[in-house]
């Protein structure tokens, strides 16, 4: 009997800790979403913990008056460009590391991992000089190129691990039955790797979507969403923005990324396990 009580207590304790952790993560998100739609009067009423009156006014103002909608468009363009460029460059490299044996491979792989330890975003500061010269400053392509540099090590490592997950024998079988190496890659390996690659793409998207430093440094008028929000909300200069605008902004920024990751959630743990080894 005593053992059973201890067991039950342990179980209750366990679930309490888990519940607390989950609540700690979820409550701020829920609260900020709620407050993003709360009417001014309810928000400034200290007794109204859970507001009663809601409005979409702030979200609309942020989106259409303060330029967040353009920011969303710009962010989408930058993120898409980043995916395209980093995949064009990254997939061949990942495939090569996964499927070939060649001298110097370990060194190359290690240096890619080492490059990941380099704070590429802050390097946007000196980069701006080159951008001004090349007329890339304040362009979305410029931001995408820098984001590509940031995402590329991840893309190479993720794709290489995805490709090595596809058995070499499938491809060899295809080659035995008459396909070229490129043909067997396109017809066999790529379709099998597709779900993983899609998840990697979402990952890259979110990485670019959330990046603020590079975007703020390299653009002035063509702001991505985080850069735009930062410039209208930031503490010292934009401290004047009323609170509820901040929450509406948080909502606008968070929702798309959360949806994206929701679709890629199956791969989350393994993918980070891979990239961060």
């Amino acid at each position: 009997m005593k053992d059973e009580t201890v067991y039950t207590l342990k179980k209750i304790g366990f679930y309490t800790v888990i519940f607390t952790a989950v609540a700690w993560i979820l409550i701020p998100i829920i609260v900020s979403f709620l407050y993003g739609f709360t009417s001014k009067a309810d928000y400034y009423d200290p007794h109204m913990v859970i507001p009663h009156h809601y409005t979409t006014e702030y979200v609309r103002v942020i989106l259409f008056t303060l330029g967040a909608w353009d920011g969303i468009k710009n962010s989408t363009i930058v993120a898409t460009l980043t995916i395209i460029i980093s995949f064009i460059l990254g997939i061949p490299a990942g495939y090569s590391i996964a499927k070939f044996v060649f001298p110097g491979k370990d060194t190359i792989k290690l240096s890619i991992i080492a490059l990941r330890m380099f704070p590429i975003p802050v390097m946007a500061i000196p980069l701006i000089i080159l951008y001004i010269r090349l007329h890339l400053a304040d362009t979305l392509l410029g931001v995408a190129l820098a984001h590509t540099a940031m995402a590329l090590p991840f893309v190479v490592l993720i794709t290489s691990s995805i490709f090595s997950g596809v058995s070499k024998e499938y491809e060899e079988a295809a080659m035995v039955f008459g396909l070229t190496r490129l043909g067997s890659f396109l017809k066999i390996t790529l379709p099998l790797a597709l779900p993983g690659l899609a998840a990697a793409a979402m990952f890259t998207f979110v990485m670019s979507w959330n990046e603020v430093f590079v975007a703020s440094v390299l653009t002035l008028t063509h702001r991505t969403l985080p850069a735009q929000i930062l410039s209208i909300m930031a503490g010292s200069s934009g401290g004047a923005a009323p609170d509820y605008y901040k929450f509406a902004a948080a909502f606008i920024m968070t929702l798309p990324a959360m949806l994206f990751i929701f679709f890629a959630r199956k791969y989350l743990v393994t993918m980070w396990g891979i990239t961060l080894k």
Partner: protein
Amino acid sequence: MERKSLLPYLLILPAFAYLLFFVGYPLLQALYLAFTQNGAFSLDTVRRTINDYYFWSAFKDTLAFAAVIIPIQLFLAIVFALLLNKAFKGKDLAIYALVIPLTISDVAGGLIWYSMLSPYGFVNKVLMNIGLISHPIYFFGYQFRSREFLAIVMAEVWRATSIVFIIILAGLQMISKEYIEAAEVFGASYWTRLRRIVFPMLKPSIQSALIIRTLFAMQIFGVVWILAGRDLPVLAGEGFYQLTVIKDYGVASIYALIIAGLSILFGAVYVKFLKAEYLEVMR
């Protein structure tokens, strides 16, 4: 087996060259901007940086944030990962909830915690309604800088613990269950198993988590800029300020170089001191 060919190198080359350029060019450019004046070597820019009122507090604050935030994150992440490595009902949902912040940018994270901690935010409202306080606690503003520090720590711990958690959890899942069961059979208690088997085998994961987190911590910017502005100067923030407001490219470049230097320094320290000896003899 395979005909000697250049193909594997050709496939890697574009990505590798791209990366080298985007690391190498800005690095050289930054060194040039930092140490030359009108084409000649000069320490003027360095002097200008060091004598800036904000420089040393930016340096100190950045390190202080890292020193406070990272240990808390590591501790929480290990506890969560150990708990969630067991099988129980709702495990998948709990894991998903804990990794949601991975998708949230530091800017958004700052804004979300502002909704918790602002004078009319959730925390103040709850505390006032249950009667613990009669006036709201002010977390923001120049005169409450130590509370701003606390708010940023809370926001960052909340937002970026997930990445540490995921790395540790992935590492735990790679440890074969039989290793732990063997220790159990041979008489080890839960703590002994953690200390002698789980932690040593988790070292590589802890190492990469620390490297990644420290790397990001050195670049801390968005959340500070949103919640405290320059009340609490940080290195990346000062670099941004010097570049965009003062337009002093040289000083801004020095901030970038310092951040890069610190990242590499800490990375090297972790690699040296968290070595997993048993993995090295295998090669």
